């Protein structure tokens, strides 16, 4: 693997690192709040992957056709709008998801008095 191809794959490696750490957080952390945070960053890692996929190298512009700009120039310079579309909706849905999970966590705290899953397991009920 030569140095240029390593640079090309660097964003992917970043995404993979984030995903691995977030899976670690979701699976092995015992605090429910930390699990929720890890899940939130997991969403961000996936969004980052989308943005990387839609990026255009070189002299790129946002996918907005400004007045005075020709269509051929626009199609040859703008980044992929589909990736941005997915991220726009995914961010809001992710936030709603987090709010719902937080509500559940509040109920768990009220019922058990703790957010540690190990202690909840010991409590039995």
């Amino acid at each position, binding site marked *: 693997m030569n140095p240029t191809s390593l640079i*090309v*794959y660097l*964003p*992917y*490696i970043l*995404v*993979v*690192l984030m*995903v*691995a*750490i977030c*899976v*670690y957080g979701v*699976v*092995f952390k015992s605090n429910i709040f930390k699990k929720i945070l890890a899940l939130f960053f997991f969403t961000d890692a996936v969004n980052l992957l989308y943005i*990387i*996929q*839609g*990026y*255009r*190298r*070189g002299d790129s512009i*946002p*996918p*907005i*056709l*400004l*007045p005075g700009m020709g*269509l051929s120039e*626009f*199609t040859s310079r*703008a*980044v*992929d*709008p*589909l*990736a*941005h*579309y997915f991220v*726009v*909706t995914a*961010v*809001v*849905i992710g*936030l*709603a*998801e987090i*709010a*719902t999970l*937080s*509500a*559940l966590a*509040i*109920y768990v705290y*009220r019922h058990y008095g703790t957010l540690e899953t190990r202690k909840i397991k010991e409590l039995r009920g």
Partner: protein
Amino acid sequence: MKARTLAEVLFTAALFLVLAYAMTGYPEFGFVRPLGGFFLYHTFNEGNPGLWSGSPNAVTGILWDYRGYDTLFETMVFYIGTVAVVIFFERRARLRQTRGMSMIVSASTRLIFIFIITSALTITIFSVKGSGGGFQGGSIMAIAYVAILVALSKGFLPQLKINVKRAHLLRTLGLTIIAAMTLTPIVFSIATGTEAFALQNQAKEWAPFGFPAFLGLRSLSGGSIIPIQIGETLFVGMGFTIMFTLLTLKGGDEDGDGEEEGGGGEKKAGKEAEG
């Protein structure tokens, strides 16, 4: 405990290696795919109005024209998320009026509040020309309420005439706007006997119904996109407001410290039912 930590680290490292190997199968990034090129080419192509969305912002065009059904059902997912939080906490929802802050604080907060709401609406309305959209505007609108909730006290919200019931009403108004814009082409189709499909924005060759692409000003283009975005802003903003208000006010308010004013009967009944 030590062996457990080692196992966790090994698992994470193995996961990283497996995922990194999987990533080498991805294409080299930095190039736009043909599908993205299609949207870029057709989104504001005045030479081919049969396939255009009437929106210079390609993301907005995809959001409510090319992939409109997708966004519609994303909205439904958000709705269900809001309903879940409301089901958990609505029963005990009651904002109580406290004395509030000094006049300077309340006046300046109202001013900033108006600025934030205005910027949210601006981002929504000019989303076809610049960047932005209904989801972003809605999030900013929710920020206005959260800022007041965090920076000032809980008891300040009643002064702003915000309660969960009004937020529900505004959210329903937003949903009604979206539904009306979605169903207008169908009503038109039934009335005139021509072809049209739900959530249609611009006229197609086989479906002549179309919202006017330019609303008088050329800077406000996009046909049905702008009204739908306004509905989406109201829906998302008020949905987040409901969620955050219920989470912050009712989530931590277990001890019921404030029952000094009337109307506590419902809350007490709710508590008894829960216990």
